[in-house]
């Protein structure tokens, strides 16, 4: 089976979208530079030329407005920001204009635009370079907010996002960029409003966003040999939230655990917990749980950041608490061993050596 990394899948999705539709343009700080946004825009200027692939001034709000204006005059811009933290500079144009234009002008116009934001962690990115701000966008009507967790979905959802006539906030976790997955060569669209059951189970529903899907799947695979089957749902989108898929699963499992890469308070994990409870209260056998970041910024020092990011171990613990299942000590050890992060905690893999 053909495999690509998530970054390659993004690149391929961009390439095929630009090839299919001459209205698609690509712009962002560093888009055509040698590092090519972690490789996701590699070769695109060479393929489509400087009239469709742009670097840009460090003017996040203005350039967002310029892209909105270009979209309203017939183009389909894809903007890229290397860090979602920079998106805070563009909140005015995104929230006041892009999200509302179609609505407030009675559907007479629309803003077909994709804004790629990269969230992440590790290597001392620190308080201002590794926020996970998806909740800020997920609250806003008029946006679609995509958070693909696999290379397959990264490509398919990006293609959908570019074809979509609404502003789509497309959020990639950096620790996903190097993970491989089977990715068909042809162009394909993945819906922007459906969660996906990645691993079937009956003991507990684990609904995960973005990179937390990876952690959840590790636990699912580690527990399966011990007869504990958990249902892992890759939420894929934060807006709209596919509550139905989760609700259906909860009706089966009776337990809900939600995983997010963001600060816990006010996270989309909280929203999902609330929605499921409002809908499926009687199906729940215990209080739902969520695992997300503690409510403070991440410090830069890797020593101090140790333990900041919950992962497979914490997921495993939460599942044990929810299901009240106790593994035999040896089995328990085996599970822990198989999910433990190998190498330094602040890098996605041992090949990662900085410097950013």
């Amino acid at each position, binding site marked *: 089976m053909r495999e690509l990394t998530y970054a390659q899948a993004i690149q391929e999705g961009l390439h095929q979208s630009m090839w299919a*539709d001459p209205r698609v*343009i690509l712009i962002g700080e560093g888009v055509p530079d040698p590092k090519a946004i972690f490789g996701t825009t590699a070769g695109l200027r060479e393929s489509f030329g400087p*009239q*469709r692939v742009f670097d*840009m*001034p460090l*003017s996040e*709000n*203005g*350039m*967002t*407005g*310029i*892209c*909105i*204006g*270009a*979209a*309203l*005059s*017939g*183009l389909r811009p894809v903007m890229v920001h290397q860090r979602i933290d920079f998106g805070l500079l563009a909140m*005015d*144009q995104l929230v*006041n*204009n892009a999200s509302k*234009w*179609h*609505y*407030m*002008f*009675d*559907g*007479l*116009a*629309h803003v*077909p635009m994709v804004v790629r934001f990269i969230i992440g962690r590790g290597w001392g990115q620190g308080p201002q370079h590794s926020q996970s701000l998806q909740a800020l966008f997920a609250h806003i*009507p*008029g946006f*679609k907010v995509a958070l693909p967790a696999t290379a397959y979905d990264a490509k398919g959802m990006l293609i*959908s996002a570019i*074809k*979509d*006539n*609404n502003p789509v906030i497309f959020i990639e976790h950096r620790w996903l960029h190097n993970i491989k997955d089977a990715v068909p060569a042809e162009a394909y*669209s993945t819906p922007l409003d459906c969660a996906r059951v990645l691993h079937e189970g009956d003991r507990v529903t684990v609904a995960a966003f973005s990179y937390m899907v990876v952690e959840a799947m590790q636990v699912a695979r580690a527990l399966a040999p011990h007869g504990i089957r958990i249902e892992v749902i890759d939420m894929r989108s934060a807006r709209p939230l596919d509550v139905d898929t989760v609700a259906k699963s909860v009706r089966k499992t009776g337990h809900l655990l939600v995983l997010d890469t963001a600060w816990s308070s006010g996270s989309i994990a909280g929203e999902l917990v609330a929605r499921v409870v409002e809908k499926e209260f009687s199906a729940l056998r215990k209080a739902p749980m969520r695992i997300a970041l503690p409510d403070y910024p991440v410090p830069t020092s890797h020593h101090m950041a140790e333990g900041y990011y919950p992962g497979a171990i914490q997921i495993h613990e939460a599942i044990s608490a929810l299901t009240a299942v106790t593994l035999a000590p040896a089995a328990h050890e085996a599970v822990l061993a198989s999910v433990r992060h190998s190498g330094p905690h602040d890098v996605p893999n041992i090949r990662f050596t900085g410097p950013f």
Partner: protein
Amino acid sequence: MMKTPAKLIESYRAMLRIRRVEEALADRYAEQQMRCPMHLCIGQEAIAAGVCMALRRDDVVYSNHRAHGHYLAKGGDLNAMVAELYGRTTGCCGGRGGSMHLIDQRAGFMGSTAIVGGTVPLAVGAAWAARLQSKDFLGVAFFGDGCFEEGVIHESLNFASLHRLPVLFVCENNNFAVYTPLSERQPARPIHAIAQAHGWHTWTGDGNDVEAVAAIACEAANRARAGEGPQFIELETYRWREHCGPNFDEELNYRSIGEIAAGKQRCPVARSRAKLIGECLATEASLDAIEHGIAVEINEAFQFALSSPLPLGTDAATKVLAVSNSCAN
């Protein structure tokens, strides 16, 4: 361009129409049926009229909270505007926008919004789209002196200059943002000097003189269309009424009675009329006919609006997201 009497009369008519429409809005606002914030441009009509005289229908205009004049001068539908203020289904936004959100895309009026500075980069984006699609329409942004303080202006000036985009910025300097004079917001230096420093071609003029405005706009538009890069026009003008709402506002005391009187003295409409009559370019009778024609049109517009269907609360739940046809495959 403005040298012909026909053009002069046309610009007079455009200004007078804006004036009379807004006076009618002001008169009826107290009836409490137009229930939205409303910013009148009475006193500032020459800018809208003069600049739009120089534009083609396919040139795209973006505007701000004080948009009536720009919308009408660019050819926006009067009925749809009045209906919009009355919140009717026939309004240009179906009632969703009100006075601060006007649109008539067929007339090249792409939208006005309520966030100061919000549409300025959109006009640059339009010009950029024109460039990238090898079309020759212009992007035009109308904004006020207060708007010039927003950072997005700087970003827009930089990008438009970098790509030498076919864009026109029209800064209506009425010396106030709400009740705050320019001197409490900006240092004593000309606004357009900053655009110039960004590499824009700049123009200044008396915003009460529609002929002068049109002449500048015409030159500027020609240059922009010819690929000579972005053009910045700063025009002095004066807002006669309160910042928001139908009334005069002498009692607020944020500007002197003398200042207000001097502002009104420079009335662009009266000035144009005086010239037309004084230089025998038009007769009193012909101008009266224009006045009459406008009155009829306005009357019809209010009738249209008031007889238009009311939207329902349930209509509000629609059009939240655009249908994504192209996603169909």
